[in-house]
């Protein structure tokens, strides 16, 4: 098992190198650089001489390949340098200051979605064709049709402004967590509800479920021990990458609820041509999703004894 994990981690390093190279070259290939964008935002052109000075300062006057090697040398030490856009802040500082908020929002959203999404999925599967089944379908269709930024605004209007139960934004007290988590969990609830229901229904038709019933087990025991454990594999398959997406923040939800998370940086880094931040966010995402897939694969082996990553002797 240890050997398998090491092999997989070595693979992740390979992926990181490939992704960093491709991203770096693509980034350089888009027209206009970071200082042009500053000029655009300040509504005046930056003088050529000043631009060249700036480029020399940040090493952008060197050949692209040299720039890449320089980047790799520093990135190995997790040093991505200073942001071009957020003056005076290092990339490490930005991640340190902002990311914990996104992680917290993501984990809360995941927990809530598991509870609601899987709960509704199990209920719908057990009570097929009844009110509970249609309720689950209705809720997941709502989640599918409703964009999170629209729901976020609606929630603000109803619960924060009209009823005044919770603040409109911020992230200081648990009360402020409620609305963002609700708005953020639309997608996860939808996916988990549908997958859980489908997977449970699939397993319910198995011969071994009939065997379990023939043993005189209660319905609860059959559902939660004999069906659920078998139904988990497809749920884990979608759940792993879902978690990766959630802990990297949400652009809309974080902006609307004024949560100082990292979600917006993924988007704005490109607009701002903030080279160091683009590289950092891309590689962070690559690492997170790769590790998530590794963990997902390891979880399969825990759920299903037929899955093994060790050569049997």
């Amino acid at each position, binding site marked *: 098992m240890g050997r398998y994990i090491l092999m997989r981690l070595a693979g992740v390093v390979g992926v990181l190198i490939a992704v960093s190279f491709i991203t770096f070259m693509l980034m350089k290939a888009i027209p206009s650089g970071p200082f042009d964008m500053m000029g655009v935002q300040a509504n005046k052109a930056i003088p050529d001489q000043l631009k060249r000075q700036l480029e020399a300062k940040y090493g952008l006057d060197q050949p692209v390949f040299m720039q890449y090697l320089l980047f790799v040398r520093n990135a190995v030490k997790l040093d991505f340098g200073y942001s071009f856009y957020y003056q005076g802040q290092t990339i490490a500082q930005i991640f340190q200051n902002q990311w914990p908020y996104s992680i917290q929002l993501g984990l809360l959203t995941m927990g809530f979605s598991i509870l609601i999404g899987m709960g509704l999925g199990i209920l719908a599967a057990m009570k097929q064709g009844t009110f509970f089944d249609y309720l689950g379908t209705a809720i997941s269709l709502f989640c599918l049709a409703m964009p999170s930024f629209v729901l976020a605004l609606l929630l603000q209007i109803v619960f924060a402004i009209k009823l005044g139960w919770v603040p409109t934004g911020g992230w200081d007290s648990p009360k402020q967590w409620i609305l963002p988590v609700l708005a953020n969990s639309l997608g996860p609830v939808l996916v988990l509800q549908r997958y859980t229901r489908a997977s449970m229904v699939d397993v319910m038709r198995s*011969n*071994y479920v*009939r065997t379990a*019933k*023939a043993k*005189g087990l209660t319905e609860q025991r059959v559902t939660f021990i004999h069906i659920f454990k078998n139904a988990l594999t497809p749920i884990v398959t979608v759940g792993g990458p879902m978690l990766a997406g959630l802990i990297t923040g949400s652009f809309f939800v974080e902006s609307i609820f004024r949560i100082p998370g990292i979600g917006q940086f993924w988007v704005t880094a490109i607009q701002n041509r903030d080279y160091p931040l683009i590289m950092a966010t891309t590689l962070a995402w690559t690492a997170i999703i790769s590790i998530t897939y590794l963990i997902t694969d390891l979880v399969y082996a825990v759920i299903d*004894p037929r899955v093994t990553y060790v050569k049997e002797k």
Partner: protein
Amino acid sequence: MDELLLEINNLQTEFKLNQGTVHAVNGVSFKLNKGEVLGIVGESGCGKSVTALSVMRLIEAPGRIKAGEMLFHGEKGVTDLLKLSPTDMEQVRGNQMSMIFQDPMTSLNPVLTIGYQIMEPLKIHRKMAEEQAQATAVKLLERVGIPEAALRLKDYPHQFSGGMRQRVMVAMAVACSPRLLIADEPTTALDVTIQAQIIDLINELKDEFGTAVIIITHDLGVVAEIANQVSVMYAGYVVENGPVQQIFEAPRHPYTKALMGSIPRLHSWPERLTTIEGAPPSLTDRIVGCPFQPRCQFRIERCASENPGLMPIATGHTCACWVAGHE
């Protein structure tokens, strides 16, 4: 005097589908004494398995038991299984009656250990503690011929061969010493040598535990070997019922006769085996008259309009045929 264990009267099970209602079991009746073996035979789709699942009350929607009476002589006197609440039925299933299924490859839960699955009924019905259940499970596995039973408790079904899995199924079924064991084609998915071993095992355990057995099969050889009584089913009806000797040596119903004619025999090797012209009727149609009548070479006028129903023709031998009954 033989003691009665199970009495099925006029059992009817149907499946309501969009294409119409499938009348899978149309008024099946039979009796089973304690410790005896009843073989239910018939071709695929004749309602054998549905009958078995009905007795266990494991028919799932869109299927339902429409009518009938299933009198079970249990520990606490006679109960009609059809009148039990689902919770009360759970007390009977796996405890007083249990079932072995056709496909051992898929009938065990792949993510639970063999030990867990065998211990489950012991803990639930016999209220055994962990260690006691474990010791009993080891004994059961040893009894059904699993080597190194204690070690194998922690193994998962995929680590066992098909024959071994069926042994585990048998061990699980007899765990609580049930009064009735239903074996639904227990050997169909196994190869011949393993088939014989499983049948022998069921035969031995039946005597050991004093369990009555309903064995469902289309393998007449299995029936000849193990059964005392035979019910022959056709299109959801029982067409002939009797002691195994009589059914094999002097079958009365034309369908049973044809069925016997289709067995290859060692000493009198006919040129060709008997086949039955035509195909069984569609179970979505309402059958008027005798269900076998369109394919029967002995049919008379009355067969098309009136279902004969089971008529006694000898002691313990009944047959649903206008012609056979009046020979």
